């Protein structure tokens, strides 16, 4: 039996733990650069704020209805997620962390009343981390996800589903007739893996509810749609097709791209941004013990400023040897940047993507004709290996905080980083920075 545990309005819930005055008020959390709403409290949803709603379109609600908007505080959300996931992990033998606020649990081999155990887990997460969760149980991951949707909707919209299914819903422990009634009451678009496009096609074909989809013949679905949707149908019928993924495979590409807080014109400022982004991806690359064989750099102006002259440039830079060395990667990224940079544009975004990964330690060397003897100089190769230096840099940054040791070309805070994210409404890093802890009145 699988469970899906999911924090309700997760980012808003994290903020409310440390600012209890926000409880009961409409709250949204804004994306990077305070662009649009990426999390909404139930009160904000009731005011009509949509997911991805641009802030400039809903900011009038601030005065009219007391809507509170906060900049995303990912250091806080990361720590609260970690606490929530660790509590959930103690209830089942296996866990797959699916996103910052969702994890699948595999209860195989666990005896007893799973609903009671999940209620206890939910209470413990609420007590310890302050995060309200919904828990869905089912014999497949797709059914667990559907059960989670029912558990959360039953709580948020009384009357939508039977109220005893609120907070914790177990689709694997009910009569067929009861399960079918729930499926018939749920739109097909709510099924995990059915995106808006497939959902639209299904509705046009007369498949409107989850029950309609579950009653289709999987073989016919494969022929008409895809193997992916066939798996979804089989999972809805109770046959597990999607395994728990508790050890995700190393990524095959790693990217860091950000919109700037303000438009950038100078090449120097783009260089500090590209250095910073490359340093971030290099650190992630080392964490998964890979080396990159090439990288892609891109810069572009803002398509949302139609009056500005538009330009976007992108280039792939192959590396002589696959590497995870920040200084080599940055040197290559900056070489790429010089190739694509054009003067006279207002740049709004840049990004760096590492590609062509190899496991570290398995390196294809080049035919090096650069030495006098024609024999590759191993002394030079040895000084090229900076993996120990990189490991030291990573551990310093882990211990003393990100950005403690940086390449000089990333620029220092403030004037040299005009591209820094706009985060005018960010709350303190309550749990991850000693000097920013919450204040309690005595």
């Amino acid at each position, binding site marked *: 039996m699988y469970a899906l545990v999911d924090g309700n309005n997760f980012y808003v819930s994290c903020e409310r733990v440390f600012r*209890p005055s926000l409880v009961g008020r409409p709250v949204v959390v804004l994306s990077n650069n305070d662009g649009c709403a990426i999390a909404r409290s139930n009160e904000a949803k009731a005011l009509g704020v949509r997911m991805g709603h641009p802030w400039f379109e809903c900011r009038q609600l601030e005065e009219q209805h007391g809507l509170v908007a906060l900049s995303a505080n990912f250091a806080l959300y990361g720590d609260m997620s970690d606490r929530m996931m660790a509590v959930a992990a103690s209830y089942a033998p296996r866990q797959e962390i699916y996103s910052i606020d969702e994890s699948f649990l595999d209860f195989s081999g666990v005896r007893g009343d799973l609903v009671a155990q999940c209620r206890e887990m939910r209470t413990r997460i609420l*007590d310890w981390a302050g995060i309200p969760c919904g828990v869905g149980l089912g014999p497949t991951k797709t059914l667990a996800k559907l059960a989670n949707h029912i558990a959360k909707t039953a709580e948020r919209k009384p009357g939508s589903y039977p109220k005893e299914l609120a907070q914790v819903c177990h689709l694997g422990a009910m009569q067929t007739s009861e399960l079918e009634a729930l499926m018939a009451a749920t739109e097909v678009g709510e099924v995990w893996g059915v995106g808006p496009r497939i959902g639209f096609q299904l509705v046009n074909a007369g498949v409107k509810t989850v029950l309609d989809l579950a009653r289709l013949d999987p073989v016919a679905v494969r022929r008409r749609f895809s193997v992916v949707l066939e798996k979804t149908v089989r999972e809805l019928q109770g046959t597990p097709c999607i395994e728990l993924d508790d050890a995700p495979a190393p990524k095959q590409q790693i990217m860091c791209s950000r919109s700037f807080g303000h438009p950038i014109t100078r090449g120097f400022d783009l260089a500090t941004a590209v250095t910073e982004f490359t340093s971030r991806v290099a650190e992630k690359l080392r964490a998964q013990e890979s080396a990159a064989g090439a990288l892609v750099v891109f810069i572009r102006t803002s398509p949302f400023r139609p009056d500005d002259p538009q330009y976007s440039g992108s280039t792939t830079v192959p590396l002589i040897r696959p590497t995870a060395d920040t200084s080599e990667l940055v040197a290559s990224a900056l070489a790429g940047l010089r190739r694509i940079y054009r003067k006279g544009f207002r740049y709004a975004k840049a990004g760096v993507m590492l590609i062509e990964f190899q496991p570290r330690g398995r390196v294809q060397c080049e035919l090096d004709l650069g030495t006098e003897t024609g024999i590759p100089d191993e002394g030079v190769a040895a000084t090229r290996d900076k993996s120990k230096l990189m490991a030291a840099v990573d551990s310093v940054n882990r211990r003393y905080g990100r950005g403690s040791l940086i390449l000089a070309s990333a620029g220092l805070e403030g004037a040299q980083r005009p591209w820094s994210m706009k985060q005018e409404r960010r709350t303190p890093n309550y749990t991850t920075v000693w000097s920013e*802890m919450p204040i309690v009145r005595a």
Partner: protein
Amino acid sequence: MYSILATRLQSRLPVPVSQANPASVHRLPSTIQAGFPSPAEDHASERVDLSKTLIKHPLATYQMMVRGASMRDAGIDDGDVVLVDRAVKASHGHVVVAVVDGDFTVKRLWKRGSNVKLQAANPTFPDIVPKDGQTIEVWGVVTYTIKSMPK
């Protein structure tokens, strides 16, 4: 010069005689025990780790900075840091962090039957008694106070 020598040695390439350093003897600033093994060896244990000792539930523990003098007689002063454990169930007599009108306050919990109030530990501060319909929400239980000693 030395680094070239080191990389050469590492890569097992021949070292030219002219580069060899005749005085490559290091004196180590420590002693080597030739006689008896340490009698403590079989009793090896880890040094006390304060965060493990003081924080029983790391997933449920948070730190907060105290501002104000209302808990003076309980040994909690302005500028102290309190460790707050949300896994401990609050009961009568616990020093707690409570939410009053949307703000955090640290007080002693007084609880008898269905009567609940928050007591200050300083005679100049009144107790907080919930008015009709108002509830006292306990956020967590204070388990330790950390004080910095002024010189």
